[in-house]
């Protein structure tokens, strides 16, 4: 179908964008549009106005530093995915982005837009939640930094008020001696995942597990983060960690999968990502020791 009518604003500066958003509480922000435009085309959304931020100067930043990766509101998935520097500092970005829709969608869709859409089946919210990232939010009234655990309030419900614009997100660097992994199961490659998991595992010099954490998509209303360090123990008992997770998740059934199947997948994916993340940590340790 065709989108319903809306007023269109194409601000050139952030200030102008924030003024327009402040003046119209039901205006929506248009960045990559890969989630918003389908909603408009299917008439599931009918905002009074769209504020197209594609021409706003300064929002297309991708800044990689030792402490993490800052992704601006106009940085497309494809650009972040292809950045070797970003991948070196926070590998989960690249690992997860490969699963976001199809390459052509990633040419247009944005990382921050995906976070602001807050779809519980999406990959990037789970990554931001797992690594303890933040979203920088601007409005005409000022700026604030929102932690991931406070940003995802509910399905499609980010902590953004009328007049707010998510200007960037910060993904902290993967700490030393830590590995990361991402896996998901979908009916067809590129579809929304039935369930997915991201994990980080840290080892000490004696190869004991000092941290094992996982975040899940598609199995809860918001990204679910579980600390599995205790369940896995210092030796990294991934089967025990999986069993622990099975007791913690309460996935919902839908047309694509039953709740039981989603729970089963969560267990399988948990063991898979923890094992892969531990292998990554081991590689990191060996490299640091130069052997």
């Amino acid at each position, binding site marked *: 179908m*065709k*989108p319903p009518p809306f007023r*269109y604003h194409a601000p050139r500066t952030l200030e102008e964008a924030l003024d327009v958003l402040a003046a119209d509480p039901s205006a929506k922000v248009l960045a990559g549009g890969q989630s918003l435009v*389908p909603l408009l085309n299917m008439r599931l959304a009918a905002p009074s106005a769209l504020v*197209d931020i594609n021409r706003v100067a300064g929002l297309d930043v991708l800044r990689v530093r030792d402490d993490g990766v800052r992704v601006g509101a106009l940085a497309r998935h494809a650009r972040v995915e292809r950045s070797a520097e970003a991948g070196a500092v926070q590998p989960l970005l690249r690992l997860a982005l490969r699963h976001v829709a199809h390459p*052509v*969608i990633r*040419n*247009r869709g944005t990382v921050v837009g995906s976070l602001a859409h807050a779809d519980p089946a999406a990959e990037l919210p789970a990554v931001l939640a797992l690594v303890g990232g933040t979203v920088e939010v601007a409005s005409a009234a000022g700026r604030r930094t929102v932690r991931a655990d406070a940003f995802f309030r509910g399905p499609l419900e980010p902590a953004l008020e009328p007049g707010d614009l998510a200007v960037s997100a910060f993904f902290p660097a993967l700490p030393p001696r830590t590995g990361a992994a991402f896996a998901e199961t979908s009916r067809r490659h590129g579809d929304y995942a039935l369930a997915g998991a991201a994990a980080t595992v840290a080892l000490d010099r004696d190869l004991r597990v000092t941290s094992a954490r996982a975040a899940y998509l598609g199995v809860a209303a918001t990204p679910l983060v579980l600390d599995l360090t205790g369940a896995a123990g210092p030796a990294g008992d991934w089967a025990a960690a999986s069993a622990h997770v099975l007791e913690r998740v309460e996935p919902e059934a839908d047309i694509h999968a039953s709740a039981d199947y989603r729970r089963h997948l969560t267990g399988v994916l948990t063991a898979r990502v923890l094992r892969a993340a531990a292998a990554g940590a081991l590689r990191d340790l060996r490299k640091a020791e130069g052997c």
Partner: protein
Amino acid sequence: MLEEPHDIALTVNGVHRTARAPARRLLSDLLRHDLGLTGTHVGCEHGVCGCCTVLLDGDPVRSCLLFAVTAAGHEVTTVEGLAAPDGTPSPVQRAFRECHGLQCGFCTPGFLCTVTALLRETPRPTEDQVLEGISGNLCRCTGYQNIVKSVRRAAELAAADGAATDEGTA
């Protein structure tokens, strides 16, 4: 709501084009209805089928998920712009013809644009890269086998064209 028309100027297949359309005009519809370029096909209109894929500043994008006003000032290449100026089909177009990479042809413009960009970025793709590259385009006729063959053949033809050009300029 009275819809305010917008003046939209963009470059399509190397030609400066203008149109006057409401903000909600999708790029796919602007190309087809306002500019008469009906080579771009519209299948699902929510970004799933890939039929409407065009190149925006060289990168493949869904023209049904892009407003024409957003594309203003940018360069768009549609299937009509893939052949050489004298009408000689591009290597990708020749390969699809040669390998029967199409049957009804509805999905073909999207595949041609997607594959053109894929081979520009990855001139010698692996099997996995081919499958990943075309994973966002649906075809209901061919079963994809001949499309995959076409992509591989297009890579060969493009390499041969490149070699011929290199010789010509040496």
